[in-house]
C-alpha cells in the first residue's frame, strides 16, 4: 500500500508527461524543434540506427562504469583514511568539496590533453562520481553504533581492527548507497568527457546532432542519456537493497 502510494503518482505523472509531449509535438505548438514522443521513440528504436545507438551507449556506459569504479573506490579509500585518522578530516572534507565544485566541462579539455582523448570520459566520470561517493561513504563509516564503538574502546582494540571488524561491516549498506547516488553522475561525466576528441559515445551523438540541427536524433540521444542515468540508478538501487537485506 505504501509502495503504491509512492509509485502511482509517478506513473500518472509519466503518462501525463508523455501525452502532453505527444500532443505538443503533433500540434507543433513549440515549433519544429519539438518533435512528438512517438517520433523520438521511433528514432531511438529504428533498426537502421540500432548499431549507432548501441555503439554510443556501449562506449558511454563502459566509460561511466570504469569511471564509477575508479571514482567510488578512491572516494571510499579516502573516506576510510578520514575515519581512521581524525586530524585529516577537515582537510579531506575541503578537498572533496574542491573536487565537487570543479567545473567538469572546463577541465575536460585539459584532461584530454594529459591522459588522452579516449580516456578523458573515464577521468571526468571518476571526478563527477567522487563527491557523492565520498559524502555517502563518510556517512557510512560513521554508521557504526556508539555502543559498539565503546565496546571496542573498552576492550582496547587497535584502530585497524576497529576499522576492519566494526566500521567496514557497518558501512556496507551505506557504501552500496554511495554507488547508487553516484551512478547518474558517472553517465553525465562520461558524456561530458567525450566532447574533446573521443570517437564515439552518447555525448558525441548529442553534440553532433545539435550542431547539425538534427532534431529527432538530438531528442532520441537525449532520451537515451536520460534512460542510461535512470538505469544506473536502478541497477545500484537493487544492489543497495541486497546489501540492506544482508547487512542491516
Amino acid at each position, binding site marked *: 500500500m505504501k509502495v503504491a502510494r509512492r509509485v502511482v503518482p509517478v506513473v500518472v505523472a509519466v503518462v501525463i508527461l508523455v501525452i502532453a509531449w505527444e500532443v505538443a509535438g503533433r500540434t507543433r505548438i513549440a515549433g519544429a524543434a519539438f518533435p512528438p514522443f512517438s517520433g523520438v521513440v521511433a528514432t531511438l528504436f529504428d533498426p537502421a540506427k540500432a548499431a549507432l545507438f548501441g555503439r554510443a551507449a556501449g562506449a558511454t556506459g563502459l566509460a561511466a562504469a570504469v569511471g564509477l569504479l575508479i571514482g567510488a573506490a578512491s572516494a571510499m579509500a579516502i573516506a576510510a583514511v578520514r575515519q581512521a585518522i581524525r586530524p585529516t578530516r577537515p*582537510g579531506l572534507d575541503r578537498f572533496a568539496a574542491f573536487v565537487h*565544485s570543479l567545473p567538469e566541462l572546463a577541465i575536460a579539455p585539459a584532461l584530454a590533453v594529459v591522459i588522452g582523448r579516449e580516456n578523458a570520459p573515464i577521468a571526468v566520470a571518476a571526478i563527477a562520481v567522487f563527491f557523492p561517493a565520498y559524502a555517502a561513504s563518510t556517512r557510512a563509516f560513521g554508521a557504526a553504533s556508539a555502543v559498539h564503538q565503546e565496546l571496542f574502546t573498552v576492550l582496547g582494540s587497535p584502530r585497524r581492527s576497529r576499522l576492519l571488524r566494526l566500521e567496514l561491516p557497518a558501512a556496507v549498506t551505506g557504501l552500496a548507497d554511495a554507488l547508487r547516488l553516484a551512478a547518474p553522475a558517472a553517465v553525465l561525466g562520461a558524456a561530458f568527457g567525450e566532447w574533446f576528441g573521443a570517437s564515439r559515445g552518447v555525448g558525441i551523438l548529442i553534440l553532433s546532432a545539435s550542431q547539425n540541427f538534427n532534431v529527432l536524433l538530438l531528442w532520441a540521444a537525449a532520451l537515451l542519456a536520460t534512460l542510461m542515468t535512470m538505469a544506473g540508478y536502478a541497477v545500484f538501487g537493487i544492489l543497495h537493497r541486497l546489501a540492506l537485506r544482508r547487512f542491516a
Partner: protein
Amino acid sequence: MNRVRTFFGRWWAILATVVAWQLAVTVFQVNQYLIPGPIPIVGAIVADPLGYLLPALLTLLTAAIGFVVGVALGYLLASLAWLVPVVGTLITPLALIVRSVPAVAFVPVLALLLGYSTTTAWVICAVACFFPTFVLVGSGLADAPAHGVDLFTVNGATRWSRYRHLAVPSSLPALVTSMRISVTVAFGAAIFSQFVMGSPGLASVLIDALARLDMLKLWGTATCAIVIGVSGYLLASRLETYAIARLR
C-alpha cells in the same frame, strides 16, 4: 598560531595536490608545453588578466542571473504547491521525473528549442537551478514540526498563516542548502550552454585554445573556472552553515 593550524588543517590536501603537481612537472620533466606547472599558469594569468577576467565575467553573469531566477521560481512554485495541495500533487511527481533528466540531455535540447541567444543561456541556468530548489524547498515546507501543526489546527489557523509562520521558517534551511547546490549547478550550466551555443565566455576561450593548441591558455582558463567554481561553492556552503546554525 591557532589560526595557522586551522588554515592548514583545512587546506593541506589541496595545497599538497598543487605542490605535488608542480614537483611532478619539474622532477619528471614532463612536456611543459602540454602540462605546465601551477607557477607558469598563474604567471600567464597575471600577465594577461583581462583576457581571462572578461570571459569569466560573462560566464559568471549568465550563471548569476540564472541562479537568482531559478532559485526564486523554485521557492515560489514550491510554496504554491504547498498552499494549493491540488497543484502540489500534480507538479511534484512531474518535477521528480524531469529532475532526473541529466544536463547533457536537456541543455542542447533547450538551446535548440529556444534558439541560440543570451536569454536561452539564462533560461538554461534557471531551469538547472529550479528543480533542485523546488524539490528541496518542497520537502522543507512539509517538514514543519508536528506539534506546531497540531497547535495551529486546534486554534483554527488559516492555511496562509500556517504557511507564513510554520512552513516558511522550517523551509529556510532547505533553501540555503538548495542555494549551495544551485551555485555549482548554475556555473556548470552556464559553461555548458555557452559551449553548446558557441557564445562568448569561458567555454569559447577553451574551444579556441584547444583549436590553436595554446595549452597555457587552456590551463589558465581551466584554472580560472576552477577558482570561481570552488570559491562560489565555499561561500555558499559557509552561508549555509551560518544560516542553519542561526535558524536552529
